[in-house]
Every structure is written in C-alpha cells, then in structure tokens.
C-alpha cells in the first residue's frame, strides 16, 4: 500500500524535500511561490484535472526543496476541483511540510484554512503575508502570540519586497526535517461526534494505508463525503488492496 509522488505527476529528486504551498485566493501565494523559486519553475496540470499546477525548486542551507503550488482555496472540505486537488495532495501526497499563506490584513478569514490543514497534518508553517499592507492600514499582527496559539511557526512576510523570506525558508526546512516539532491546536468536537469518529476510525484503519490520517478521514465519512475514499482508491494500483477497501467501505455503510 504505497502511494508515491508519481500518482500526483511529481518526480522529486531522491534527496529533495517536497513542500506544499496552500492559501486563500488573493493572499499573494503566487508572489511567495515566485519569490522562493525564482525562475526554476514548471507548470502543468494536476493529473486528470483541469487545474493548473506550478512547481518549482530552490536550495536552502544545502537542502534541495521542491515547492508545489496548490490552488488558492478557502477550504479543503467542499468539492470544487480546486479544493479536491489541494486536499488530496495534503492528505495523500505526503508533503514533508505544508505552508499556508495568509493575508495579514484579514487574518481571521484565513485561519479557517489554517485550522483545516492542521487537522490533516502537524507539519505546517503559516506565512503571514502582506505585512506592508497591514502596516499601512494600521493593523498590528502579534506573530509570536499567533505562533503560540496555533502551535506552529508563523512567519511575517512581505513577499513582493522579499521581506521575511529567509526566515520563512528556515521555518519550512526546520518543520520538514523535524528540527522543529509542532503541536498544532486541534479542533474540538462534541463528545458524540468524537465518539462516532473514533469508532469509525477503528473500523477503517485496516483498509487504509497506515500513514494517512485515519481520524480525519473518519470525520469526512461522517459528513457523507465519499470523495475522499474515491481519491485514495484511484491512487492505489493494487487490485487486492482495492478489494479490501471496497469490502471495508461496504462494511461501515451497513
């Protein structure tokens, strides 16, 4: 049961770290992407989707990094093609870390996506971008408190002027290599939801690759979102594994 980057049309070098870049629309995500990767970019589509993908590489402190630009989304839970691509890659693509670019001028509305990403993976860096614009509007962002509250590194940047990018690269590398261990704030659910999800998690665990976030998938299934199962399915080549998943999903549906 191995998913590989090839399933997402990616071919990282053996010693390259893979980093996903997520964020709401209009947060300057592409500016961050361009600032980090410069001219070392490829564009194409996500396999089977008419969703544009940009990937680029850079080297930081002698570490090779492949940065994958995800579509700009408000959420990972609805079912637009963009959101599915972002969700599938974060959940199933096993990036070494995920950067969420946020807009410092309206941080609150960006934290929805941050929390959703942190629900899937602890390896998150928050890039608080557009700090110059926030300053102009007399908005002060207490990045240290934000980092403490979220439990992941939050780095202030003004990507279009290159401000803060070195610190962002440091944070990405440290989270990706495990030098920084994060403790992301978890969403707390009502006890009855928690109980149902825990039960379902135990039942689906034997049928899914061991490294995916089973609890998160159980929550999606409780919501009636079977697209996540389809997403896993379509990326598993082995027919015997498919048969087991089929049996498993039929079992919980009963």
């Amino acid at each position, binding site marked *: 049961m191995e998913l590989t980057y090839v399933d997402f049309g990616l071919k990282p070098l053996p010693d390259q770290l893979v980093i996903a870049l997520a964020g709401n629309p*209009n947060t300057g995500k592409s500016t961050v992407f361009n600032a980090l990767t410069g001219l070392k970019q490829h564009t194409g589509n996500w396999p089977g989707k008419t969703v544009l993908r940009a990937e680029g590489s850079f080297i930081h402190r002698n570490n090779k990094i492949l940065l994958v630009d995800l579509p700009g989304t*408000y*959420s990972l*839970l*609805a*079912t637009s093609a963009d959101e599915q691509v972002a969700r599938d890659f974060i959940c199933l693509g096993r990036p070494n870390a995920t950067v969420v670019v946020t807009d410092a*001028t*309206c941080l*609150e*509305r960006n934290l*929805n996506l941050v929390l959703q990403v942190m629900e899937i993976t602890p390896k998150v860096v928050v890039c608080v971008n557009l700090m110059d614009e926030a300053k102009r509007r007399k908005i002060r962002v207490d990045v240290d408190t934000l980092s403490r509250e979220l439990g992941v590194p939050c780095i202030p940047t003004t990507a279009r002027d290159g401000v803060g990018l070195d610190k962002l690269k440091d944070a990405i590398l440290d989270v990706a290599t495990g030098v920084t261990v994060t403790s992301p704030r978890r969403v707390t659910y009502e006890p009855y939801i928690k109980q149902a999800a825990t039960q379902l998690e135990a039942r689906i665990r034997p049928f899914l690759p061991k490294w995916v976030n089973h609890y998160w998938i159980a929550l999606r299934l409780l919501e009636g979102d079977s697209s996540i199962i389809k997403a896993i399915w379509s990326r598993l080549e082995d027919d015997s594994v498919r048969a087991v998943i089929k049996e498993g999903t039929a079992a919980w549906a009963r």
Partner: protein
Amino acid sequence: MSVSIVPLSQLPNGGSGRVASLTAQGLIRRHLLDLGLVTGSWVEAIRRSPAGDPAAFNIRGAIIALRNEDANQILISID
C-alpha cells in the same frame, strides 16, 4: 428598538447586520461557512451590479460577490 430578520439579498446598499442563521444546506452551506458567514458574523452590503444580481458584501474584511440565489439563504438580523 426591535430586531428584524431579513435575507441578506434584501439588505440595502450601505446596510449591515449580523448573520442570524443559514437556511442553505449541503455544499452551498459549507461554502458560505468557509467564506466566514457563521452565526454572529457582521456583514455589510457594499454595492450591486446593474441588474441587482450579484451583489457585493463586506464579509470579515473581504469584498465578496454573492448571487441573490445564495444570499437569499443567509438570514441577517438588523437592529
């Protein structure tokens, strides 16, 4: 002063209020919640397109255009 509840689509330009509830279901509901339209969120009607649909709203610091069809499913309390 009494509190009245109107669909967001009927908020006049410049008018504002707080989200009382969403009547939308399923994916539209999910998407509206993701846009920041949760109970208690302050919303202001900014302007309308020439035909009146869609209309632009200030939702938590961002200007977002919604179709009447969707704005109808957001109930706003005005005091």
